[in-house]
């Protein structure tokens, strides 16, 4: 097995062009497990941890640009005010050791339907920055996933980072696992309210890829259109219909972690709860509206 360790982004892109079957390695929290279990037997590993620019984030216009090497621990400590749902999801990833190593960029690279970063990135309307020696492109997160653990990443491309607008309203992430920490989601859900604009959703672990609940977003955006200013209580049937539409968007299966029925039911509950919490925050002009 070849081990490649570029020190600049340009070298990394060059190496990926030369060795398209090289498996990119950042925190190693997925890749090394797969290697150790014999599930991945790459001809080459492309270690990206020596590239400083991947570890930075900065405002870029009205968005934030976050490098693929920013760890979950830093998403929590540095970006919780601007990307609250992503920070909340990051808090639920693994153990402190895993959060010190693992990155949202790596999560995207693995493209697991259970990746904790995906629902908040979907709800927040994030774009993934892909780059190769041929050039750079941006892909909306919902376009990025192509199937279970598959993405639209070309063989010569690397994930440079992602772009997302800072929250303009309340955001929530909720996850059900079989224990309180260090657990793969049985299912998860993220909700972002953008007052005056619309609503974002993201579903995890309840389909072949992370999913957006488009119909639920559209329905809720319509219901909220004249309520953003009024800030009055949301009628129960609105919350219920939203929850139904979220559950309807899922395509869950039975597996060792949970049944399809359980996932659909819990999605309904998580959708109802996150909407209730987020709307209450909005009505109070709460923390999420900074």
């Amino acid at each position, binding site marked *: 097995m070849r081990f490649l360790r570029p020190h600049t982004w340009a070298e990394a892109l060059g190496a990926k062009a030369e060795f398209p079957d090289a498996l990119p390695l950042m925190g190693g929290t997925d890749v090394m497990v797969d290697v150790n279990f014999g599930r991945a037997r790459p001809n080459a590993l492309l270690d990206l941890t020596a590239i400083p620019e991947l570890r930075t984030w900065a405002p870029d216009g009205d968005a934030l640009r976050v490098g693929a090497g920013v760890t979950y621990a830093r998403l929590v400590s540095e970006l919780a005010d601007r990307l609250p749902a992503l920070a909340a999801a990051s808090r639920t990833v693994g153990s402190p050791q895993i959060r010190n190593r693992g990155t949202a960029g790596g999560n995207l690279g693995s493209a697991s339907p259970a990746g904790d970063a995906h629902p908040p990135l979907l709800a927040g309307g994030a774009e993934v920055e892909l780059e190769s020696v041929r050039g750079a492109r941006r892909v909306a997160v919902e376009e990025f996933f192509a199937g279970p653990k598959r993405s639209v990443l070309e063989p010569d491309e690397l994930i440079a980072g992602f772009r997302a607008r800072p929250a303009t309203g309340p955001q929530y992430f909720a996850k059900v696992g079989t*224990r*309180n*920490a*260090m657990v793969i989601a049985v299912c998860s859900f993220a909700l972002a309210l953008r007052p005056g604009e619309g609503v974002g959703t993201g579903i995890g672990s309840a389909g072949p890829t992370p999913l957006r609940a488009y119909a639920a977003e559209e329905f809720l955006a319509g219901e909220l259109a004249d309520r953003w200013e009024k800030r009055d209580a949301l009628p129960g049937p609105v919350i219920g219909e939203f929850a139904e539409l979220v559950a309807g968007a899922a395509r869950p299966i039975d597996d060792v972690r949970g049944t399809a029925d*359980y996932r659909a039911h*819990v999605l309904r509950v998580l959708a109802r709860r996150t909407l209730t919490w987020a709307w209450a925050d909005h009505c109070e002009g709460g923390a999420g509206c900074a």
Partner: protein
Amino acid sequence: MTTDIERVTGTALDRVEGRDKVTGLARYAYEYPADDIAYVVPVPAAIARGTITGIDPGDALAVPGVLTVLSFRNAPPLAGNDPELRIFSSDRVSYRGQMVAAVVADTLEAAAEAARLVHVGYDAEPHDVLLRPDHPEAYVPEKVNPSFPAVSEQGDVEAALGDAAVTVDTTYTTPAYHNNAMEPHATLAVWSGDRLTAYDSNQGSSTARDMLAAAFGLEPGQVRVVSPHVGGGFGSKGTPRPQIVLAALAARAVGRPAKVALTRQHMFAVTGYRTPSIQRVRLGADASGRMTALAHEVEEQTSTLKEFAEQTAVPSRMMYAAPNRLTTHRVVALDVATPSWMRAPGECPGMYALESAMDELAVACGLDPIELRVRNEPEEDPESGLPWSSRNVVACLREGAAWFGWAGRDPAPGVRRDGRWLVGTGVAASTYPARRRPSEATARATADGRFTVRIAAADIGTGSRTALTQIAADALGVPPERVDVRIGDSALPTASLAGGSMGTASWGSAVAMACVRLRERLDGAGGEVPEDGIEARYDTADDIKADAAYARHAFGAQFAEVRVDPGTGEIRVPRLLGVFAAGRIINAKTARSQFIGGMTMGLAMALLEESVPDAEFGGFLNHDLAQYHVPANADVANIDARWIEEDDPHLNPMGSKGIGEIGIVGTAAAIGNAVHHATGVRFRDLPIRPDRVLDRAPQIGGRNL
């Protein structure tokens, strides 16, 4: 010698090897060095039942650094009476994951790579790996672990049930569980002529030595097993496991020291597990709650290789008074690995069922569950008629009730809410036998004023080395700093296993008496230590014969508070309290760790742990720690263990009962009973998973919160 020194037994002495462990100085089996080590990686069977039709080692042997490929084709036959350890002895495959070959190589990497390339051909046969009720092949074994009769009968249980004013007839199931010690099973084997040394992770070096000697046709004196530090066993290292045999076999085959460490995934196949169980419990009581009948009937699995029948119903033979009693075990031999000891075999699953049924009986009788248990206290052991050496389960229940705040508990189920959570509390009793096994120890005084105690005991993380240091210090009347305890080596005086919560009682008896003898010899020598030292030896074999005069058990009470989210089915356990009566506690710090560790395992049993059999291919589906869940810190909120000091003169020189396993006994029942109190629904299949809670959601108030 001074006698006015404050006793060190009972204090919270720090672990004597604690600093070595936290600084990495403590050496575990796989870390032992040797020159020119060869590495061994086993090849697991890919089918659950059938015959090996061919083994093609060609591609494996072509990997640079590979020395040999061992299989039934070329491995020398092994002796010994455990078919799980007679590896490579035939072309039969009895379960998925069974070792069918192994690669020996210069490096671990080469061995692992080559193990993938050993091509094994199989003639697979249809297999059966699922325990299910009324299995047509189920039979009554001759005995259950270790040597109890499979069936016990007193009076006429059917008639008594028919006449009872109140009855409970209910069936509980528990899944398979895996021991999952932190340190994987590992061995470094070194031959020197016809002498074998094994650095090995086990629960008893004397036992491992005897097994190795039998397997290779050697005298025990030709074999030495060294295991000073062991990273947990939970029963899975009590019986030697195939890696120790494989290391010795490989070392002999290549004429070099050989190292084996099992992977976590392979541990799920070859290091034992607890059988799943199906347990029917029937209780009959009069109107006041006094039991007239108790029937506990168990179905469980064993393997086709050898019989292991867990003694699941055995606690129902002694726990409560009932003039009419029936306990039975039936096993079915499936195409699975042989189940074995795991964390309180018998008591753990059996008391889950019995203590859950007792809660159901309390509800049926309209009695507080503590009061029900008090009303059914037996004066003497109901099965043997022997007097109790001591029995303080009622004190544990009563004291625990006071500490937990049980008084004034509203028994009505499913009515307490805190926001979206349904809240409930539950209680269960706990018990574990207080046995001893023969052991030998020596105690030696040296002219420098120090003392050395030798015994082939094991410290698998429990703190036994520290406890033995305290026992020796008190028996000698010296501070513990002057005592060196040497354990974990079969070259030391022969000792029993760390298992069955017998370790400290068995070894401590030998250590205490050896130290008493040494003091007598020292006194006889006028208190002067001769230049070349002075030594005493003690063997407890004769003393232990007198143990049979009493029924000897530790007891306890477990209290749990749970919160159930009816929307998602999630269960939280904000409070757990265990109260134990286990004779004299030798070390307050390590004892507390043992108790709350066991209780945490009980919480895991109630809510998390479950080995899911793979019906299609055999073996287990969730064979790693990402999928086999034990609790994380965040799952264990407020957990407390307390104890009632007992003065029991019938036990041993320390007056102690074993505490390694009682912590897990009853905990799952206390949590299950609390879930019933919270929700009004009785869950009788463990673990109580969120999806199982939701399946019963229509019966739980407020599903759609």
